[in-house]
């Protein structure tokens, strides 16, 4: 049928002919729901004998419990992924209400939740298949290393707020859990390729198969090459990058009660940036230097799940990963080994208990330069953690109380206790009201404790320059949060759902930068005076805000989801603090208002059209001296996907359509020059067979 249309219609010339061809071809293709899934089949027409051979995917206990989760949860599904038009995980996270995503340069993002955001944002826990991926170097995430193929992501669960007692010390303002698909869900071959003006070329080749009766596997290669952004003056930046990743996943059923997942990946890449460098001890400040950074990452992970009975199951997870970042100013190599055990069981008929224990060993070697170094240059750190959580059905189906606590021990601050209490009330099947009080800690990182950063020199008495130097503080303490949260979820009929969450955050012991000792240093020449500054825990403050999102199915073929976020912080320094900049910087570093509007249209015959708009409020008091303002902006992305036939689809997307270019960030603490995002477009083909 396709060919016929092509033959008859392609004789017409010009634009009208092309349009006619497009419409004609549309009329002949089947409609579809999701890229990765076949339309639901009427299984009642299948014989019972055949039904017994159908493999099913189970709705996990966790998913069933989503409605009674007493936390601000948002789930990005596979459908959301392709509808967003995003080509990387940070852009995908823009779709989550309450998350603040700002692109700094081509390969660097600042991603925060509920008020704090900077390049080295350090209060989020991010996991891939249960493995923590935040870096102990700065307690933040190297987003450029999360280049897993989006087609393999099963879902991303985002929890705003401290998340609960299960997740670790970094889960302060949010938890992002990325789950990849089981190997059994990716049997066959997938080829995806495309390119455009910013995402210049990208592609995935993946192959999955069954190995005998009990094991499935997949292997994939993922590649992309991304163009540069613009520098602050509108000239071409130096931040283009490319990355190649190869990976596999196997899922085996060892016995009816045991399953084993093993996955691994290796990736290499090279990214450009304008890094800030201090050329000499007399230089008044940083100069931007074009740098090329080579990246190499590898990880391997296994999860063994064992079911004791329907009411009791456990999982043991082991992982190892290596991260190499050839940053010329501070090259880093890090090896991390992690082991985690979790046991989940029903206690009596009203209680569900989860407890677990974990251990992480991480060692690094971080090279230095005049600009930046870590002292000591290498370190090995251990983290012991344990948690217990009990969900009690005070009234089954209606009222649930969850109490839990996490107990951790790290090498910097020793033991830390993070308790939480949560309550969920389901007055009927369509509504959930919840509230929670939790304590969370952000443990110190290498950066907080061991940093040596030379910022610039000022002329001193007698012609001796004074070099300003920021030092980590080995006695840096935990940053502390007590979070009060409440939320409401409802289904207002079959077509409209609403999710509302509000919070009040009581912060204490937050980081400030304080002047400390002064001394004479003969080398490097010329001899100079050094004025040091160091991190202290002298700031406290309050944050409050809310996130609201609605999903409205206006018609069977059209749905819209508006979202709005308000986040406001007030920071104060203790009387002994001399830091006047950090409080303003933190207050101004995250937008007070965020708004989103998504429109999904299923046109006929396999054609879908998505329009995603994001509004981000201005940032104030940014930049090296706190005098930079990032104006508010509206980002508009659109993607049209056409499933030409069953296993073949084509999409065309435009990103940042409203303006030629705009900046999203300019960080006071940043290590590199922020760029500006350009309007861009790309095309993509997906073929499964």
């Amino acid at each position: 049928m396709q060919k016929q249309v092509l033959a008859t219609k392609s004789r017409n010339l010009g634009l009208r002919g092309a349009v006619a061809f497009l419409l004609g071809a549309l009329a002949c293709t089947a409609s579809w729901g999701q890229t990765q899934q076949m339309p639901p089949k009427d299984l009642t027409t299948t014989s019972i004998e055949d039904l017994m051979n159908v493999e099913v995917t189970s709705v996990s206990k966790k998913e069933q419990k989503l409605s009674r989760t007493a936390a601000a949860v948002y789930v990005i599904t596979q459908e959301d992924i392709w509808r967003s038009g995003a080509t990387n995980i940070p852009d995908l996270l823009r779709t989550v209400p309450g998350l603040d995503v700002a692109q700094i340069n081509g390969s660097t993002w600042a991603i925060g939740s509920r008020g704090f955001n900077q390049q080295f944002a350090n209060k989020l826990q991010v996991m891939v298949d249960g493995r923590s991926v935040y870096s102990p170097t700065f307690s933040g995430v190297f987003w450029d290393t999360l280049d897993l193929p989006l087609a393999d992501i099963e879902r991303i669960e985002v929890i705003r707020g401290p998340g609960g007692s299960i997740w670790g010390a970094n889960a302060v303002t949010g938890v992002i859990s990325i789950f990849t698909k089981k190997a059994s869900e990716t049997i066959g071959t997938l080829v995806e390729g495309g390119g455009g003006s910013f995402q210049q070329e990208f592609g995935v080749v993946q192959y999955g198969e069954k190995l005998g009766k009990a094991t499935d596997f997949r292997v994939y290669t993922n590649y992309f090459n991304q163009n540069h952004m613009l520098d602050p003056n509108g000239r071409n930046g130096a931040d283009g990058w490319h990355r190649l990743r190869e990976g596999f996943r196997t899922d085996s059923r060892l016995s009816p009660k045991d399953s084993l997942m093993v996955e691994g990946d290796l990736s290499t890449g090279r990214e450009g940036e304008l890094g800030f460098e201090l050329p000499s001890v007399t230089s008044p400040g940083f100069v931007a230097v074009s740098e090329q950074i080579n990246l190499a990452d590898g990880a391997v992970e296994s999860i063994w799940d064992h079911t004791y009975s329907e009411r009791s199951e456990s999982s043991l997870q082991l992982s190892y990963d290596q991260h190499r970042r050839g940053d010329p100013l501070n090259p880093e190599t890090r090896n991390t080994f992690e082991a985690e055990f979790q046991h989940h069981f029903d206690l009596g008929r009203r209680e569900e208990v989860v407890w677990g224990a974990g251990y992480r060993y991480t060692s690094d070697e971080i090279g230095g330069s005049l600009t930046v170094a870590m002292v000591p240059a290498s370190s090995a750190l251990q983290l012991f953690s344990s948690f217990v959580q009990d969900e009690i059905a005070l009234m089954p189906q209606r009222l649930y109380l969850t109490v839990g606590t996490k107990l951790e021990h790290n090498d910097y601050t020793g033991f830390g206790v993070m308790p939480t209490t949560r309550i969920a009330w389901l007055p009927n099947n369509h509504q959930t009201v919840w509230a929670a009080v939790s304590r969370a800690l952000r443990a110190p990182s290498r950066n907080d404790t061991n940093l040596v950063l030379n910022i610039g020199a000022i002329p001193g008495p007698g012609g001796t320059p004074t070099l300003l130097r920021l030092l980590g503080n080995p006695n840096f303490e935990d940053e502390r949060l007590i979070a009060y949260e409440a939320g409401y979820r409802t289904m207002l009929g079959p077509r409209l759902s609403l999710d509302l969450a509000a919070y009040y955050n009581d912060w204490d012991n937050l980081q400030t930068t304080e002047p400390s000792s002064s001394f004479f240093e003969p080398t490097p020449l010329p001899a100079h005076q050094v004025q040091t500054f160091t991190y202290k825990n002298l700031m406290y403050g309050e944050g409050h805000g809310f996130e609201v999102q609605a999903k409205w199915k206006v018609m069977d073929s059209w749905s819209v989801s508006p979202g709005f976020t308000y986040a406001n912080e007030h920071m104060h320094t203790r009387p002994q603090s001399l830091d006047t900049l950090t409080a303003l910087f933190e207050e101004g570093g995250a937008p007070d208002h965020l708004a989103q509007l998504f429109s999904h249209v299923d046109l006929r015959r396999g054609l879908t059209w998505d329009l995603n708009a994001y509004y981000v409020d201005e940032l104030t008091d940014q930049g090296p001296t706190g005098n930079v303002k990032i104006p508010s902006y509206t980002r508009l992305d659109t993607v049209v996907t056409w499933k030409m036939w069953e296993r073949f689809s084509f999409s065309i997307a435009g990103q940042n359509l409203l303006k030629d270019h705009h900046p999203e960030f300019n960080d006071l603490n940043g290590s590199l020059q922020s760029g500006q995002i350009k309007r861009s477009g790309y095309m993509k083909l997906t073929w499964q067979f």
Partner: protein
Amino acid sequence: MRDAGEQQRTKDALLEAGVRGLRIMLAVLVVLPQLSGAWPVSAQASSPNEYSVKAAFLFHFAQFVEWPEGAFQNASSPIVYCTIGEDPFQGALDVSLKGKTIDARALQVRHLKDGSEAQGCHVAFIGKTGKKRVTDELASLGTSPVLTIGETEEFVKDNGMIAFCVEENKIRFNINLKAAEKANLKISSRLLTLAKTVIGSPRR
């Protein structure tokens, strides 16, 4: 003037994107046929959800069961399916049974909070609501002619009639024939042969 420049830049960018995209697509199209010959071809189909399959099973079960006289008001009364307690189907049961008939009887679905409202049900699905509640629900149904279907391990031992279990991602079921007979339900031997285990051998 600035706008014109901006427009030109946009045009250039789009043109560049277009050319690049076409080039890549061509490359993909050229390379693919070669690959597809070398690799075994199999379907990239994602498995259906557990509960949409279970819903289809529920449809079939009713075809293999004979209710006693009096269970239906008349020959055209509908077969009423009830979910009791937490409904794990999330609409899949309603969708599967919509518009279907068995022996000229229409199929109805009701979602009930507990078994006390189960009057008029012919098929009752009792989900994983916790052990005590399942036995409570079963007890409350007594020997009324209701085909009881569950998915907990102890379901058939607790006098439930059919219990689902999942083995290696495939759905299996156990039958307690004694319980069915007590409720005057006849289960066809074809269904019995498909069951993993049957409690109580068929009477001659």
